[in-house]
């Protein structure tokens, strides 16, 4: 009997459906992606079981890092330009159109207003390298209070969120809260990470 020859065929897989699937996913991620904003400091926020999400727009973010430096950020380009105008008028510093535009693209900063000009003059890569000293919050140079007040005058809808590092010391946070309360802000948000809510009490 002759042997039955098994026909040799090199196996090939049709990848077309996989390509379809992958490109669908790519498209999805491209459309939902929002680029991570460039922040002056990275903070590690503590976690909480709270389930409220932070609103997308009209948020003032006051960042407190672990070296007790305070950073200020607000969203909205128009808001920022108008805000810088007001602050410039208050402190008697003139900003050029170019500087205003740079400021409107900045997500947050942490320098006294007198040094703001030099920060704005830098390239964005250079700005990351520089060690920003934080916004003055002591009672004689309470610039944070002015920033908050002027932002609220510019855009009355803003909500205030405090984004503190886990290791930020309490007195600094307390001082920030006191500044807000002096400006009659008694309701604000603390930005935290997600944590599973305990079920058994």
């Amino acid at each position, binding site marked *: 009997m002759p042997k039955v020859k098994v026909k040799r065929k090199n196996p*090939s897989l049709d990848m077309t459906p996989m390509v379809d699937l992958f490109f669908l996913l790519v498209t999805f*991620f491209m459309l*939902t992606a*929002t680029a991570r904003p460039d922040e002056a400091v990275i903070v590690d926020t503590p976690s909480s079981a709270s389930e409220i999400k932070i609103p997308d727009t009209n948020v003032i973010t006051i960042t407190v890092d672990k070296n007790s430096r305070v950073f200020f950020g607000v969203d909205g380009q128009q808001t920022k330009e108008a805000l810088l105008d007001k602050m410039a008028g208050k402190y008697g510093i003139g900003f050029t159109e170019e500087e205003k535009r740079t400021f409107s693209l900045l997500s947050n900063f942490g320098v006294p207003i007198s040094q703001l000009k030099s920060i704005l003059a830098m390239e964005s890569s250079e700005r990351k390298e520089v060690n920003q000293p934080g916004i003055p919050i002591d009672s004689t140079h309470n610039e944070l209070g002015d920033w908050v007040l002027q932002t609220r005058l510019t855009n009355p809808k803003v909500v205030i969120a405090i984004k*503190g590092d886990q290791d930020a*010391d309490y007195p600094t*946070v307390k001082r920030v*809260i006191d500044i807000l309360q002096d400006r009659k802000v008694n309701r604000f948000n603390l930005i*935290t990470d997600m944590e599973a809510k*305990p079920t058994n009490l």
Partner: protein
Amino acid sequence: MAEIQEQGDSGKGGKKRAKRSSTKIDMTPLVDLAALLITFFMLTTTFNKPQTMEINMPVKPENEEEQIALKASNAMTIILGDNDKLYYYFGLAEDNPEVIESSYASNGIRKVLTSSQVKSNDKMTVMVKPMEGSRYKNMVDILDELKITDTKKFAMVDISDADKQLVQEQIGN
């Protein structure tokens, strides 16, 4: 790689025909590329927005005298100490209460806040007094605990010297 499937030659002589071939394209590199892009987008996206915790601070009173004094039976104080330590006591600092050390763990302060001593008393007010050495995380943790245990009446209060004294004694023991 586009490969051309060869059809077996029958071997018999005959007319020479143009080989029929179906084109098939190897999609593997395309898959590689797509997977790479997916990975990139997945890593650069901030997918879940950070949570927030809303707190309402009490409005600062115009003058101190208008405040109503808190009864000792309705007061509980939580002191946030250095090195993630936590102390609490019932009553007022003047009455020299017993200061008990607790922790942020789920069987620590949460047990106290859900105990009948707190839960059965509607007027029970919890005062949170962070010491200078406490961290921001401690504050968030305790506010979170109060939220989890559904404690409605609480306030963040500045620490007094009497409280510091009590904690000092507790550490000394």
